[in-house]
């Protein structure tokens, strides 16, 4: 409406308004209160990440959630509920917080830099308006005052006024703001490290049985992740062999895992005792032992008397290491003379490995993770395992779709339980023998160049936080008036108590003849 009344200088006004608008928003964004709101918003926004499964942690859990909630899950997915910490809304909050932080740090840096070099401000004309004001009953020596303040590491400025008044102004506790700025800057450094890490890091998980080896390339990992700046062909070259794995148990559970590994990199070889909390570092790439499990060894003897031995890793289902897995023999029952493949004669077994089977109870699953009486609970299938179709499939179970479609037929009606050395005999006379259990280690290999940056940021953050919180900034003045009286006063620049005592103590050191007041305020204990 004002536009019609005052159409005159439109352009400059618009530009001005535009600038005013941004200035206002910038002020708003960098206000402490905004930081407060953003911090609380960030806390709130982090919550869904713990209530919904996250892709970054376990894609399997996310898939399970989709199975369980087929209607809800796609909607949640559209809201990034399964990628909370990379979601636009989470990023928006922390980016705003970062901008606010930078907008807050930069001016404070300037102010602090100036304060560090500017002389301590003079006392106000009427010092009695200051909180810790005293009038001394005796004279005080100026040189002594300066010496005392200097010895206690106060920064001082001496001013002699024309009327003969002399003021020593002192200030202390600049370290608080220094620490504070260091702290806030470190927050940025930590986030920069995290960001660098997500772009430049890579990791791979690998299950490795005893006496097995693998080399560092992505095809050899069971699961891997690659930052977007990482070139998969430039991963460091090394190979690892698990020479031996040892798990120690007591009645309550496992107490120690110990993996002896041999590594080979660029012609160099070495051995390492890999343990939990004790990673192996190969040129900045860390190899961690993050778990272990059992490998079942079985031998299948087919209709033609041909045997095949399989070392099959099993996946733990619970803390007692009751584990699930499958044995698949796609090329069994081939006539060795004619080479003819019996159609539908492939054999597979779904199995549960129980480390310590207790036959005094009716329970199949054991409660002890140590392999004291291992058994296999087996369900056999014959037919077409469905391995030839090129689709990826679990090595831990027989393909359920093949069973559902009738391509695989269950052979035994009841699950058969066999111990080490025992055999399960199928109706066609073929057998599966349980030879024993071995152990495997779960290794994680990770390279994260952001890690050291984050650690440095975190250490600096803590170093800044301590003085930023503990140091108190305060001022103290002592003034010699032309009429011969001497006044002192103190001023808190941070909220803390104890300045009274400190001022009195300073005054006593500067003017030893002075009786500490006790009259000014009647604080108990100040009059001895």
């Amino acid at each position: 409406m004002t536009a019609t009344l005052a159409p005159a200088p439109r352009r400059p006004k618009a530009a001005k308004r535009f600038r005013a608008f941004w200035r206002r928003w910038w002020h708003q964004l960098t206000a402490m209160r905004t930081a407060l709101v953003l911090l609380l918003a960030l806390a709130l926004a982090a919550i869904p990440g713990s209530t919904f499964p996250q892709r970054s942690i376990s894609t399997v859990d996310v898939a399970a959630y989709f199975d369980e909630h087929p209607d809800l899950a796609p909607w949640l997915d559209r809201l990034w509920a399964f990628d909370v910490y990379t979601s636009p809304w989470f990023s928006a909050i922390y980016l705003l917080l970062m901008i606010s932080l930078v907008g807050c740090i930069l001016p404070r840096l300037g102010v602090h830099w100036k304060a560090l070099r500017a002389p301590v401000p003079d006392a106000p004309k009427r010092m009695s308006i200051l909180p810790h004001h005293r009038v001394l009953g005796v004279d005080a020596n100026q040189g002594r005052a300066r010496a005392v303040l200097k010895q206690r590491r106060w920064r001082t400025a001496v001013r002699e006024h024309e009327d003969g008044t002399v003021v020593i102004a002192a200030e202390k506790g600049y370290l608080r703001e220094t620490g504070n700025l260091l702290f806030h800057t470190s927050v940025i450094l930590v986030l920069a490290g995290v960001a660098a890490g997500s772009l430049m890091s890579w990791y791979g998980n690998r299950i490795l049985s005893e006496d097995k080896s693998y080399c560092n390339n992505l095809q050899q990992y069971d699961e891997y992740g690659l930052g977007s700046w990482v070139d998969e062909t430039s991963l460091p070259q090394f190979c690892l062999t698990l020479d031996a794995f040892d798990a120690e148990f007591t009645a309550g559970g496992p107490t120690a895992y110990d993996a002896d590994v041999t590594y080979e990199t660029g012609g160099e070889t070495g051995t390492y005792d890999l343990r939990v909390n004790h990673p192996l570092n190969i040129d900045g790439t860390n190899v961690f032992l993050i778990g272990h499990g059992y490998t079942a060894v079985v031998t299948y003897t087919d209709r033609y008397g041909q045997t095949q031995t399989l070392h099959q890793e099993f996946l733990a289902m619970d803390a007692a290491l009751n584990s699930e897995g499958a044995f698949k023999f796609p090329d069994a029952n081939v006539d060795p003379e004619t080479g003819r493949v019996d159609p539908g004669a492939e054999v597979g077994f779904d199995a549960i490995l129980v480390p310590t089977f207790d036959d005094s109870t009716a329970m199949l699953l054991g409660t002890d993770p140590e392999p004291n009486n291992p058994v296999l609970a087996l369900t056999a299938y014959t037919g077409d395992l469905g391995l030839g179709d090129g689709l990826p499939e679990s090595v831990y179970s027989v393909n359920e779709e093949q069973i559902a479609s009738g391509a695989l037929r269950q052979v035994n009606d009841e699950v058969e339980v066999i111990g080490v050395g025992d055999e399960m005999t199928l109706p066609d006379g073929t057998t599966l023998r349980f030879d024993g259990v071995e152990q495997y280690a779960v290794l994680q290999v990770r390279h994260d160049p952001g890690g050291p940056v984050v650690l440095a940021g975190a250490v600096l953050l803590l170093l800044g936080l301590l003085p930023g919180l503990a140091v108190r900034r305060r001022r103290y003045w002592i003034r010699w008036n032309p009429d011969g009286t001497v006044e002192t006063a103190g001023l808190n620049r941070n909220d803390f108590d104890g300045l009274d005592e400190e001022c009195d103590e300073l005054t006593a050191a500067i003017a030893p003849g002075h009786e500490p007041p006790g009259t000014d305020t009647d604080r108990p204990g100040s009059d001895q």
Partner: protein
Amino acid sequence: MTGAEAANALFVATILVYAAAMFAYAVEYAFDRRAPKRAKALAAAGAGGPASAAEIETDTPAEAPISPAAARGAGRLGLVLTFLGTAALAASIVTRVVYTGRWPWGNMFEYTVGVAFAGMVTWLVLVSRGSVPRRLGLFATFAVTMVLGTSVRVYTEAGPLVPALDSYWIIIHVTAAIAASGILLIGCVFAILHLLKRAFDRRVSDGRPVRFPLNVAERLPDATALERMTFKIHVFAFPLLTFGIIAGSVWAHLAWGRYWAWDPKEVWAFIAWVVYAAYLHARVSGRSAKANAPWIAILGYAVMLFNLTAVNLVFSGLHSYAGV
């Protein structure tokens, strides 16, 4: 008696002694009639911690069933009992260490007991330094006894550690977390006391009647003094909490191969840290934000408790060592 039984007997003794101490403090809190006068003297003196006020004797209302002197005696007894109970708790923890031959923070029960211990030690340090009046021990012992009572619900037989916990980082990380949680517990108690007293003051100045339970706040120190004590405790605990989280991520790097992966425990530690940072900011962001700051502190502790209980018991994550 085995080591475990001895540890448990000492644990039960602690709870009984704390309960007795609570009762003794309650007698002092209710019948030592100097308290309101003392608060006034304090207000006149301007600043200073609540306990720095001198002993100012006043006469007693005749109808009090227990004399102020006797009430003060009860308070002293309460303090002695608090020391005794804390010594018993320390002995219980040490006995567990000797019995298991390992550091005593291996499961949720032990962790919770550690928090209670740290809280009580914090309280005793504050009382011994004269920073807080003795009779407020009523609230501290109450809070700590509640924590100990909760720990019983997650009791676990003392056993060995799973491999990932078997590291000296357990000492560093968990001790820092426990110490921070214990100190923050006392900080939270002060935030609540401050809010109570503030509500009480507002009612009185509005001339509205003050009914139970708010009238309990009459004997509390000055609301401003309570607020400053709240702040000081949080300022002390926050770097410790920060350090605990950093140490935890160093340990996570060693044990699990990554320093931070938004495991539920990590998520909630992050939330607690951010909430406490918000508390520290609220305190310097103007008057209305400052008035709300104690609520943020209480929210912070609610998050800590949630992280200790619900995250251990409900969510599944790598931190599922609760042993329950």
